[in-house]
């Protein structure tokens, strides 16, 4: 038989399918990526070996800063709107639709109810500049109880998560635990970051 000439293939590869795939994935990740609103306080969570991942929805996050200020955050815009409406009713403060929207679109908040209206009147930039004092959680004046109660009323499937800073002193943590106990939240989550060094 005659010599078979080796088929000379061009050195360029058709990259179209690969590009298609790459862009498909890029689009997917871009759309699923959630850019969470900027938190008013930076918290370093302690590390643990725990592997359970917190669900994204129906979570009430209590952020506990280094100084012991409690910030409250509820996932879901409609849940937040419902929450501020309820809290307004409870404290006899009527919020306008605009104020409710503003609250719903925000992130963690740590403003006593007395100053809430004042705080919501500010624009985003001014809000960021405000040093939030934390939600009152002492036995004398405990607004945190009402926040948790109202949040649970507006969403019965709510899970409570505590996001505390490593250096928060225990008495402050204990106050939050006591408050949770008072509201009959006996199962909750402590947010931690994964341990990488071991």
């Amino acid at each position, binding site marked *: 038989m005659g010599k078979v000439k080796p088929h000379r293939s061009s050195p*360029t590869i*058709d*990259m*179209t399918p*690969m*590009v298609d795939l*790459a*862009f498909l*994935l*890029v689009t997917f*990740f*871009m759309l*699923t*990526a959630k850019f969470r609103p900027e938190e008013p306080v930076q918290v370093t*969570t*302690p590390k*643990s*070996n*725990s*592997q*359970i*991942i*917190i669900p994204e929805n129906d979570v009430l996050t209590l952020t*506990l800063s280094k100084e012991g200020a409690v910030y409250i955050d509820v996932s879901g815009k409609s849940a937040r709107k419902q929450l501020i409406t309820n809290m307004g009713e409870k404290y006899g403060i009527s919020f306008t639709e605009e104020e409710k929207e503003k609250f719903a679109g925000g992130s963690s908040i740590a403003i006593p109810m007395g100053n809430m209206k004042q705080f919501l009147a500010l624009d985003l930039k001014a809000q960021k500049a405000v040093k939030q004092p934390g939600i009152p959680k002492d036995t004398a004046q405990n607004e945190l109880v009402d926040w948790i109660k109202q949040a649970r009323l507006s969403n019965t499937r709510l899970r409570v*998560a505590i*996001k*505390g*800073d*490593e*250096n*928060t*002193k*225990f*008495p402050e*943590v*204990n106050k939050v*635990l006591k408050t*949770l*106990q*008072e509201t*009959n939240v*006996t*199962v*909750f*989550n*402590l*947010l*931690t*970051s*994964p341990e990488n060094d071991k």
Partner: protein
Amino acid sequence: MGEIAAGGGGGHKKGGKVRSKKMSTRIDMTPMVDLAFLLLTFFVLTTTMNKPKTMEIRIPEKDDNSEPIDINERRVVTLLLGDNDKIYWYPGINPATLQEANYSKSGIRKILQENETKINALFGNKEQSMFVFIKPLDESNYKNVVDILDEMKVVDITKYALMEATGQDKSIIQQYASSMGAPNTP
């Protein structure tokens, strides 16, 4: 355009009709692919990295009217979480045997494991395994509490209770600190 260019050139040997050069329809996609994968990597990393882990804990109800359970004191280990990442611990209910430990693998974990085997050998059934009292003192921080709860999970201790330190506990620590601190102070 090809024709004009060919006519203008004029340097062709054949002089006849110049075939328009067939341009390749392929474009070099490498830079685009580079960019696509760069973005891809970025999004992949940012989405999976900041998923916080969680530790589920359960606290007793407030109006818990159930009978307090009697626990044999030999099953109990008490941990007092102090300042500067220190743990003070004593077996049973006798604080005279107070000792100091830290949060490392060879520290509290070893102690817990040793005590667990000791207690298991003594009682020999699962129902009566070690019971750990965790009492964080006011000076301890949140990290200490999480660390010790994590340690419970690692050592696989199912019976533990987080409780408030009493005034007695505080005085025990003070006593211990003064007895230990005396030789060290210059």
